[in-house]
């Protein structure tokens, strides 16, 4: 695989007050690739994405984006005050006045053509996510960044949304970086997985991380099992503060501790 890099983080750390959120992150996003970022709550996934997007300045380290890179960003959720009267159509036209044709076609792509004249406040969770996805796609991005794209969507809708994202990626040949809690749902449609818990615990092909179907099953078995699962499959475990406490084996690209 010789895909050129779209963006890179080099030795990025971030701390808020005394709390270390991210520590020495190195990662590259490749062209034509779906990268999934997984990790427990508070692992720093959203912060990492915001640093990559230039929304948050890292405490140290470097962020590189390919010059002229167009990013479509779908935030975790957005809160539009109910006092702002806004239809889906207007929402997609601010601030750039895309013509109605492109808006209708991109809404059709995400399976939301019927929402055009709906008030944005009347959308269900899944409809809102599709609208946000449409907004990100309207920019014709090289890189699509999705922060928990299935937030507030029921389980059937989640599978459907992931399928849609994979399909869109294939059609548009853009790269995707997404944050997800549930690896079992994204496993099939992701090329590269990064496990994050303040530092990059491991990364690689989903199969390389674990070829064992039990891994997928276990991952999906319950949200609560997520953290325990990491410990089972990594070469180290974490104490309550997320610090690495031991190393015993090694299977994919693992980080080193000094």
């Amino acid at each position, binding site marked *: 695989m010789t895909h050129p890099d779209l963006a890179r983080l080099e030795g990025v750390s971030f701390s808020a007050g005394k709390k270390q959120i991210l520590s020495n992150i190195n990662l590259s996003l490749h062209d034509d690739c779906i990268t999934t970022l997984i990790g427990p709550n508070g692992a720093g996934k959203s912060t990492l994405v915001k640093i990559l997007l230039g*929304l948050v300045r890292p405490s140290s380290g470097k962020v590189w984006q390919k010059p002229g890179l167009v990013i479509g960003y779908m935030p975790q959720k957005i809160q*539009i*005050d109910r006092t*702002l009267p806004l*239809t889906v159509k*207007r*929402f997609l036209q601010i*601030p750039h006045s895309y013509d109605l044709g492109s808006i209708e076609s991109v809404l059709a792509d995400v399976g939301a053509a019927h929402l055009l004249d709906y008030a944005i406040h009347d959308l269900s969770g899944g409809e809102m996510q599709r609208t946000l996805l449409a907004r990100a796609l309207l920019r014709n991005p090289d890189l699509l*960044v999705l922060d928990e794209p299935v937030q507030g969507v029921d389980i059937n809708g989640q599978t459907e949304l992931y399928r849609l994202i994979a399909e869109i990626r294939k059609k548009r040949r853009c790269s995707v970086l997404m944050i997800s809690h549930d690896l079992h749902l994204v496993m099939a449609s992701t090329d590269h997985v990064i496990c994050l818990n303040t530092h990059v615990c491991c990364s690689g092909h989903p199969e390389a991380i674990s070829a064992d179907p039990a891994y997928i099953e276990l991952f999906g078995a319950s949200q609560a099992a997520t953290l325990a699962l990491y410990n089972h499959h990594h070469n180290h475990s974490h104490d309550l503060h997320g610090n690495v406490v031991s190393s015993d084996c090694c299977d994919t690209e693992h980080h080193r501790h000094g």
Partner: protein
Amino acid sequence: MADFLILALIAGVAVALVSGPLGAFVVWRRMAYFGDTLAHSALLGISLGVLLDINISLAVVLCCVGLALALVAMQRQHWIASDTLLGIMAHSALSLGLVTISLLDNVRLDLQAYLFGDLLAITPEDLRWILIGAAFVLGLIYWLWKPFLAITINEEMAQVEGIAVARYRLALMLLIAMVIAGAMKLVGVLLITSLMIIPAAAARRLAQTPEQMAIFASLLGTLAVVGGIALSWFIDTPAGPSVVVSALAIFLLIFLTPRARS
């Protein structure tokens, strides 16, 4: 009709027209308390203007802008919540202003007029400044409308889409500061925010688009100003509070009217 009444009407309508769209942003962005804090600080601006012998409206704008910048800087820290910070700033600025004014014993300021407005004491010179300011602010709002809306919908998304969020947020604050300086004569520092948010809130019920809401807010504000001045003229009530009372009446009328089914 008396000349001063015509001056008051023109000034009032100009301020109401500007307050419409800005008031809409204040409502959408939940900045009511922020606006109130800026308005309270206007009194500090007045006292500093008198103290330094500079144009009072200019002093008020500068003071509001200074406070807005200080607020933005202080909201980056996390040990005091935003609303507490606003509360501290609002009442400290107001009190500092009142204390400073009381120390200027060679100057007689009509405090009442600044706190609650003295619409009927507007001079042609005041009116000229209000009209120039209103035209300037309306022009800027028209020009910056789309980016303002974009940062109101979601700042992070706007940033990724290439909008200089910090710059537009600052511009919006500056415009609000200017309106406060202009509206101060009309309704006084304690009532300014109401002139921005009551017509905008009332307009929500009638509007289908952001633009409609801004325009309806301007029109309802104008109606409130005319109604308030009429009230003041015919039954001799204080002009500023009368404007707010008529704005409230319009708001209630719109909210208590059953919504037409389409």
